């Protein structure tokens, strides 16, 4: 068994927010007791809707946020506190890319300068060689010298995301956290970037924490996935298993909501209601107000994680000790 590059154990993060202008401060649990592990060279996908805590989990993994409780282990050692020299050294091995490349790039700096900037900051190698290194990295993501001299506004969306990738990868990180990296791109360009990401992962032995709401892309890139709802993981296991035979009713609804080209006659599970407000988390299982198979206990008791024989874990009362497939009828 390969070693875990990243381990989150029991992490929680809450923020406090005011209800109304003079209202009481109430804690919002963005991430609640999340444990995940990512194996070296593999891809773990974090899936969920807005407010599910998937982006916060990604930021905690990089040490950009401190968890209120729980531990983050990178290659077996705990992350040093943010903004310390030790953290900065470790951060060089962990990079992040975001959904909107234009917002992530400096609009007034040519692509080449932005790509070499991390080398300057971390003082890597002789200054005279940094431009060549940056150009080589840009070449590896499919951008030429002409692109290197351009400003972000002169590039297309796909090219900008390539530039963001080059900048993140120039430090030769071993872990890349991708927060919705292809969601803003057109279909034909999305395929280019997904392929590029997978090629780079293979060539550079990257481990990816892939945050996305797009299950089609998740199926393409990840070996394992975790489905989050209101800050908690509801189902976690091999992507192949979860997508072909999901057990948690929320995972089932998410999968059924994926619009597939050329398919019309399918019965879709339409969840009623809205994703609830993290500041007003329902008691018991957070999903119970929208759950098609909720029982009385679901409203009071938060379900514990059960590990099924196929290795996945799931938090649902309806699954406890029962054969899941008959139980979760729709």
């Amino acid at each position: 068994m390969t070693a875990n590059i990243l381990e989150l154990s029991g992490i929680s993060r809450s923020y406090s927010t005011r209800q109304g202008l003079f209202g009481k401060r109430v804690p919002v649990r963005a991430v609640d007791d999340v444990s995940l592990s990512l194996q070296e060279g593999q891809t773990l996908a974090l899936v969920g809707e807005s407010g599910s805590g998937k982006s916060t989990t990604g930021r905690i993994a990089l040490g950009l946020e401190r968890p209120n409780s729980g531990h983050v282990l990178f290659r077996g050692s705990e992350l040093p506190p943010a903004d310390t020299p030790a953290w900065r050294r470790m951060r060089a091995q962990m990079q992040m890319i975001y959904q909107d490349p234009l917002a992530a790039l400096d609009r007034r700096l040519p692509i080449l300068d932005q790509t070499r900037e991390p080398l300057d900051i971390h003082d890597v190698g002789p200054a005279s060689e940094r431009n060549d290194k940056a150009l080589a990295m840009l070449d590896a993501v499919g951008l030429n010298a002409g692109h290197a001299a351009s400003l972000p506004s002169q590039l297309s969306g796909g090219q900008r995301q390539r530039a963001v990738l080059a900048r993140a990868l120039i430090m030769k990180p071993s872990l890349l956290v991708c927060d919705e990296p292809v969601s803003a791109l057109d279909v034909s360009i999305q395929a280019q970037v997904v392929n590029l990401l997978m090629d780079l992962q293979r060539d550079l032995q990257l481990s990816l924490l892939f945050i996305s709401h797009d299950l089609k892309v998740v199926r393409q890139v990840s070996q394992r996935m975790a489905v989050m709802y209101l800050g908690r993981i509801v189902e976690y296991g091999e992507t192949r298993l979860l997508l072909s035979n999901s057990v948690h009713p929320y995972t089932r609804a998410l999968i059924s909501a994926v619009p597939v080209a050329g398919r019309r006659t399918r019965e879709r599970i339409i969840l009623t209601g809205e994703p609830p407000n993290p500041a007003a988390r329902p008691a018991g299982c957070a999903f119970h107000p929208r759950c098609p198979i909720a029982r009385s206990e679901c409203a009071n008791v938060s379900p514990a994680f059960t590990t099924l024989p196929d290795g996945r874990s799931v938090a649902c009362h309806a699954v406890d000790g029962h054969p899941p497939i008959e139980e979760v009828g729709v």
Partner: protein
Amino acid sequence: MGNLAGCATGYVFPAAPAPQPLLVIEGMTVDFNGVRVLRGIDLTLARGEALGIVGESGSGKSVTWLAALGLLPRSATVSGSVRLDGEEMLGAAASRLDRIRGGRVAMIFQDPSSALNPVLRIGRQIGEVLARHHGVSGSNIRAEAKRLFDLVGLPDAARRFDAYPHELSGGQNQRVMIAMALAGKPDVLVADEPTTALDATIQAQILDLLTTIRRETGMALVLISHDLGVVSETCDRIIVMYTGSVVETAPADAIFASPRHPYTQGLLAALPPFEGALHRLVPIEGQVPDPTNLPPGCAFAPRCPKRLAVCEEAVPPLAQPENGRFSACIAATVQPARLSLKLNTSVLA
């Protein structure tokens, strides 16, 4: 067409345009500051039809409908013809357009919270539509609004009436937008990426709602989307656009089973599959050309794996190779096109 088997009221989309289509767009072009972004669009919309418009950014899929409804800024030059029940809409007087827009033709947009006025209560905004188009006033507004909120599945209608947009979620705001659109009892609802800003489970709710309302009211739906999956599950007929032109039109089932235009084939091949074996994605190489610098022939030719020499010289016309299907491709008529699934090894080429 088997896709209509499950359709409750059985709108049968005719293979040939109906004798009197509801809406006809002919030869419509749009120029922004001398740059042509829409290069001659012809399309018809039948009564009660669900028409999907698919394309990537810059394809002109939104501009087509903004231009048809006279919603583009003055810097845009629009020409051609848009007829609603035979009545010309392009160049019509503002007073006449005001009666049509929000009345017979309604439009909803991607981001509902920016389409609503943030400082006005929901009730006042929907009341404005009711007062303007139906002369409803006073307490009748509240009653009619409640009926519309019920229709779009917005619970607790009375409280929503007095709420501000920020007090509602994105999905609820989109339901308010749909309710406002339905207030005018439209013959056509144009929905421009109505679910793109929404979460997956809410997207499913809204698409389901649009389909239900269309079947109940018999209005036509124009669904503009970049997502082939979204239009596939909602629409009877699909129009694929590229760089301001229609490249293919076909019934939904046919276009996914046997796409004719190489661009449509490329789009479908680029989608990650959700069933069956995983394979490396097949992207369309290159990128969408700049509208100021379009190639002289077929705009897709530089990215097309099937291009012939002639493709780089002449713009292919939208031809009808079989009944009800149109494709603007010279190569496809020379050699019957097949969905190319050969794996491309280089992504960086």
